[in-house]
């Protein structure tokens, strides 16, 4: 069982996994930032804090990135082959 698990996970290189989490979220965070700041003036969003507009854009982007990377991470986690599938595969062999 562990064997099957190992081999299926090894099918996807770690680099691809890292990219699968960080890259789509980066792209989507970019779009989210543009849409969000077209609707709201960055200075109003961070009114109570002393940040420049560029700072507001950047913080917004980074926050969006984090919050989009989280679902990507969860997807990656849930996309792992689960034990019943792995067993079926084993039996089939």
């Amino acid at each position, binding site marked *: 069982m562990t064997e099957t698990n190992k081999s299926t996970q090894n099918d996807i290189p*770690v*680099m691809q996994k890292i990219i699968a989490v960080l890259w789509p979220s980066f792209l989507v965070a970019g779009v989210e930032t543009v849409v969000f700041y077209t609707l709201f003036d960055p200075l109003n969003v961070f009114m109570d804090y002393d940040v420049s*507009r*560029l700072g507001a*854009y950047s913080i917004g982007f980074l926050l969006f990135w984090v919050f989009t990377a989280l679902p990507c991470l969860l997807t990656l986690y849930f996309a792992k082959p689960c034990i019943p599938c792995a067993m079926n595969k084993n039996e089939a062999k």
Partner: protein
Amino acid sequence: MTEQKKATSTETPSIEQDLYQKRKKIYPRQVHGLFAALRVSGVSLLLGFFYIMPWLMWDGRQAILFDLPERKFYILGMIFWPQDFIYLTMILVIAALSLFFFTALAGRLWCGFACPQTVWTESFLYIERFIEGTRQQQMKLDKMPMNANKFFKKFSKHFIWITFSLFTGFTFVGYFTPILDLSAAIPTLNLGPWEWFWILFYGFATYGNAGWMREQVCTYMCPYARFQSAMIDKDTLIISYDEKRGEPRGSRKRGQAPEQVSLGSCVDCSICVQVCPTGIDIRDGLQYQCIGCAACIDACDDVMDKMGYPKGLIKYTTENMLNGDRTRAFRPRILVYGMILLGITIGTIIAIMNLSPIELDIIRDRNALFRETGMGMLENVYTLKVINKDIVGHEYRLSVEGIKDLKLNLAKQRIYANSGSVVEIPMSIEVDPANLKQRTTEIFFKLEAIDTNLSVTEEARFLGPRVR
């Protein structure tokens, strides 16, 4: 090839191996030839454009500046405001359509010659070759245990790479923050925290992508690579190995014709594999990793020349041509993509040319619908918002029509707006109630520039009491 296989079978798991797993470092061999020359000119042109552009001035300000804090985009003589973002979207649509069009025509032209990933990777390769030498020397250096010479070479390579990347990051930020201010702040390191952040971020991305990740970016990160098969057909120009002519492959002495040794034209020298930046063997057929850089064409043509065989064992061809069928360049797909592309491009250009450099907004006072003055007149209050998108300032004249004998009270005598500025002027209109025929009357504000013939008309409403 064989060394690479050995390298992967070593069982010592290091972080590097863990990260890359099946990846072997690829050492692309240098190529000379038509396509190599094309790529060098493409790389120099695009990089030159990227690094020089932010320094160009237009009418005393940066020619291309995406001023995020002010939310204004300056492109040559034009200023784009947030409300003009539709044009930016149109330009992106045009870019996407051109990609479709050129992919249908000639495969991954973009990837091999114009993609930033290729362009920067190529320049990083030049630097690497300059310091570490040829492919053979690079592989020898990597296998050698660390010594002073190796350390010095590796150190200088990374030093130049990092410097180059930081300059790239600096240039990138220069598109968003006036680059003259930025360069003035560099010697004293007096930049804002976010400017620092983005210079380092972009610099790091360049260094990582062009220095380390390279073809993995194309394989794992590029969305285009994955759906390209949907855009190409049997008439698309692709880079392909002529299997009929090449097989059976085999080595032979120089000058021996294929017939003499009863082999195909491929001498199995594996040079086409060595030059490939993605490390694939084009002789295995069309693969999604192939970025269409045509390095293998140049390389194999060179080999064919040396052998005295005709060139073109690997060449730009189409699936139909390989099968001996007719190829049509003008087919419905190309015509449809071409027409849509042309239509949208012309439409966008016309729309941008007709973009009015002045905009007028009339905002009604929300507090009171109307007011009666002491003289028995009716008064409505508005705020005039003049947006000057032109590259020079203008003085304007305002006139209002729609009701007989209306009287205009402007809070300011002179309506003047600087280039790229918004001016708000409170104003009111007074009319004699006898001239009102209904409760709501349409009125027209006309704003004219005094020095040129620019004008804009905006509709608004004048409210009065119910007319009996």
